Every structure is written in C-alpha cells, then in structure tokens.
C-alpha cells in the first residue's frame, strides 16, 4: 500500500502541468499551427522559438483561449481548457502578457496590477488586492510609482506593469509573448533577472522569445516551430545547434 501510494505520488509530480496535444489551427487553407504536441512540467521555463510567422503567438492565443483550435486540446493539471472562454481559462490559472504591451490607460499603475488580483484565480478584493498590487510593483522595480498612469511611463515600465498584472492572480502557468523584446541591454539584464526570480520561486512559464541570451540562460527546455509545425524539442543548446533549426532561421548555407 505504502509503495503504491508513493508511486502514485511520484506519478503526479512527474505528470505535465500543461499539456498541449495535437493542437491545430487552420485559417482557411493555411495551417498556422499544425499538430503541435508538447508538455510543460511544473516549475519549468519552456521557450517557444521559431522564425517570424511560424505560429508561436497563435499557439499562445490557443492556450489562453483568445482563439478556438480547429483540432486538439490544451489541458492544465488534467483539466481540459480547450473550448473555455478566455476569462475561465484565466481563472483556472493561466495568465498572459501580450506581444504589443496592453495597458489600461485610464487606470493607475497600481490599479492595472490590481486587476489581475481582483479577477484572476485569487479573486481578492479591497485592501488585500491593493497590498498584492503594491508588493508586485515593488518586485518589478516600480515602488513609488503606484499612482502613475500608463501614458506617463516608459515602454519597459509598462512591460513591468503588465508582468505584475499577469502575476497578481498568482497563476499556475504564465504565458509571456516576447516580453523581453524591445528592451535595451541594461533593461534586458533586469528583465532576465526578473524572469529568473520567477523560476526560483517555482512558477511555470511558457515564453515566446527571440532574444538568444535570454533563451540560453532561462529556458529549461525549448520547442521550436516553423511554418506552424514543431521542428525540434530539447534543451536550449540542443535545439540551437540542431541543423534543421539553423536552416529555418538562417537559410540553407548556414546549416
């Protein structure tokens, strides 16, 4: 009995937290995402790589519920999320940032972050939501700027607020869509350190990214997409030295 119990426990901890199975999205005749399957384990940072137009953002949109897949499923801890409305997926514990940062212009920085705490899986209210908002703003380096509005903030600061908003609901899985894009070298180091700290606290992250330094230093594993299909899967070193991947990014002569 005891052995059986232990085995079951090990089975649970080894099971994937987020499971993407045979996910397909067709726009007319174009297969933007073509039979993609992969698992994300608890506490893992998975990089989603691929040239522009390879279907990475579409894949994130399928996971977060912004679009319905033509075929296939996404499940979180065994619960199928596919077909649920975006707000239900968010409440189930999947939160995201957007490729082009999306602020709420009439809300202050603090209120922007509180949105995640109030309506996300935590569903807190009042002083508790405010406390979470303040703590997260401090964590992303914006202490003292709680009452600023997005129009008065720099691009990196807006991205920080957006990350804090996504974290405020204490999500199971965080989806980052090119969160590090457009940052200068100093900001990039800060950004990488921030995501590293998420890794340290054991949060599961799926990040679409082009910045190779970040991918090498942050990602436990990577999935590479090309023209909608999965090209490679493995550690950052493995996939980045894979001839197929180099060909997809740089063309035949470099492979």
């Amino acid at each position, binding site marked *: 009995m005891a052995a059986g119990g232990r085995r079951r426990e090990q089975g649970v901890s080894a099971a994937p937290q987020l499971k993407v199975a045979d996910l397909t999205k067709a726009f007319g005749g174009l297969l933007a995402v073509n039979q993609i399957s992969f698992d994300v384990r608890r506490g893992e940072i998975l990089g989603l790589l691929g040239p522009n137009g390879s279907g990475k953002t579409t894949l994130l949109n399928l996971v977060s519920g912004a679009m319905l897949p033509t075929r296939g499923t996404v499940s979180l801890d065994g619960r199928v999320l596919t077909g649920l409305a975006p*707000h239900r997926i968010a409440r189930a514990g999947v939160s995201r940032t957007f490729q082009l940062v999306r602020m*709420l*212009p009439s*809300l202050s920085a603090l209120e922007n972050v509180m949105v995640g705490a109030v*309506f996300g899986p935590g*569903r807190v209210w009042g002083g508790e939501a*405010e406390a979470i908002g303040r703590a997260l703003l401090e964590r992303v380096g914006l202490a003292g700027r709680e009452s600023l509005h997005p129009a008065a903030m720099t691009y990196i600061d807006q991205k920080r607020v957006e990350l804090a908003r996504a974290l405020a609901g204490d999500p199971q899985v965080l989806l980052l869509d090119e969160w590090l894009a457009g940052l200068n070298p100093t900001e990039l180091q800060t950004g990488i350190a921030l995501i590293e700290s998420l890794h340290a606290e054991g949060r599961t992250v799926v990040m679409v990214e082009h910045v190779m330094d970040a991918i090498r230093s942050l990602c436990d594993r990577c999935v590479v997409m090309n023209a909608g299909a999965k090209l490679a899967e493995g550690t950052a070193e493995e996939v980045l030295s894979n001839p197929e991947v180099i060909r997809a990014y740089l063309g035949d002569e470099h492979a």
Partner: protein
Amino acid sequence: MIFSMQRREVATMAAAAAALAVLAGLPLADDGFWLALGISIASYVAMATAWALFSGPTNYVSLATAAFFGSGAYVVSALAESAPWPVILIAAAAVGALLAFAVGVATLRLSGVHFVIFTFGLAELIRQLVTWYQTTVTGSVGRYIFVEISAAQIYWQLLALCGLTFFIGWAIARSRLGFALRVIGDDETVAAHSGINTAQCKVLLFCISGTLIALVGAVMAPRFTYIEPSIAYGSMVSFQVVIMALLGGARRLWGPLVGVLPFTLLYELISGRFPNHTHLLLGIAFLLIVYFVPQGVSGLLVKAWNRMPWRRAAAAGSKA
C-alpha cells in the same frame, strides 16, 4: 485609489440627500408650470442617468429607452384596476429587467453599430406587437389609465427614483462590477484575459439600466391618462435621453444630470417660442453642442474647476 476617499463620499451623500429634500419641497410652492417642469426634469434625470450607467462605461449606444419606458407604462395600463400601486411598480421593474436580460443575452455579442440598430428596432417591434395585440385581441388601440395619484406624488416618486439611480451608480462604482467596467471600457481583450466575464457584466448592467427606465415609465404613465403604443413607445424619448446624457457627459455619474437641466430648459424655451420649428432648432442646437462641447458639460465643469486658484495651488503643491 478606489477604497479611500470615504470622508468625501459621505459629504457628497449628505449634500445629495439635502438637495433631494429641498427639491421635494417644490410641490408646496407651486402645482402648475413649475411642478410640471420638475416632473419632466426628474424623469429625464432618472432615465439619462440610468442610460449612462450602461452606455457610459461600455460605449454601447442603446436606443431601447423607449422600449423600457413604454413597457413600464403599459404594465400600469394593464394592472391599474386590479393591483395596488406597489405591486404595479414591482411588476414594471420585473418586465424591464426581463426585457433587458433577453435583449442583452441576444445582442451584447454584437458590435457597437449593430447593437444601436437592434435596440432601435426593438422599440418599434414591441410597439407594433402591442398595436397588433390591441387591435386583434382587445379591439381598441388606446387605453385609459385611472390611478388615484396626484402630480406631487408622481414628482416625489420620480425624485426617489433619481436618488435610487444615483445610489446604485455610486454602489456599482465601488464594487467589483464597477472595477470590471473600467477595465472593459479600456480594453476588452485585457479584461477577458484577466478573468472578467465581459458578457455577464454587460448583461447585468443593461438589466439594471432597463429596470430603472421601466420604473420611470410606470411612474409617468398616470400623467398620460390615455396611452396608445405611439405615445408610450415614441422613439423621441430614446433620442432625447441619448442627447441629454451626451450633452452632460456619460462618463461621470453626475454627467447626465448637468445635461438634462440645460436641455430641458432649452426645449421649454424653443417649443414655447417657436412651436412650429422646435425640432429644427433643437437639431441645430445639438450640432453646435457636439461641435463645441464634445466632452459634455461635465467635462467643461471639471476643466473650469481645475483652473480655480485653490486647485492650481494644490496641483503645484503636490508636484513640489
């Protein structure tokens, strides 16, 4: 930010209650022209504020005001002889809520323009249905309404409805729903991905707004004495409410209030002096307003307030 300012809110509430108490004294001073004007203003304040509760934050322009108003009035005509007044009001509120719920569920997935056309068509559809019912089933189109109620009582009930509408607006603003609406107004995609059920929020708000407007229709019904579909469901009321709310500014709770006052006075002035050209002159006035006061009267007032010497000093102090 949204949890502080309690002392100021208490002061505002006290001032509002005092204002309502003063206004409630109007029938004691006059029971002719001024009371009639008071009834007109109170009914439009309640309707325009209720309209803006929904349309302000969501940016959906509803032309269904006539549908709610008329249905409230028709509930009175149907029940006037068989039910006591409070029961009639509850029935009117229920009819308004149900109608808003059905329309909301069916249409709030539509984008802005389609929603406008649908709500306009809805008032016409209900009007035709009522006409058809009355000609084929009851045999006569019009109905007399005999309710033992004085003009002063109607006025007081409308004032109470105004107070209720403002109270509900205030309560929404400090609730989860109010916070969700600000997010939806800013970016609906972010709202959905943050866990907000946007459709549910909008339907709920539309129901609250429709219920209040139906109640205004019910309270106003005895004023008509005789109603028929073209009176109760007249589309003018839908347009007037939109114009008043936009004139005042639909984004602030007190915005419609400052739109109704000048509009109603202007209407009285124009329709009294130029009875044959009322709508022409109103149209011109509206064009001028939209052109010169796009933010609404409330926007102008806020701007003027911020230019006052003591506000400037406060702003400079907070910067330093």
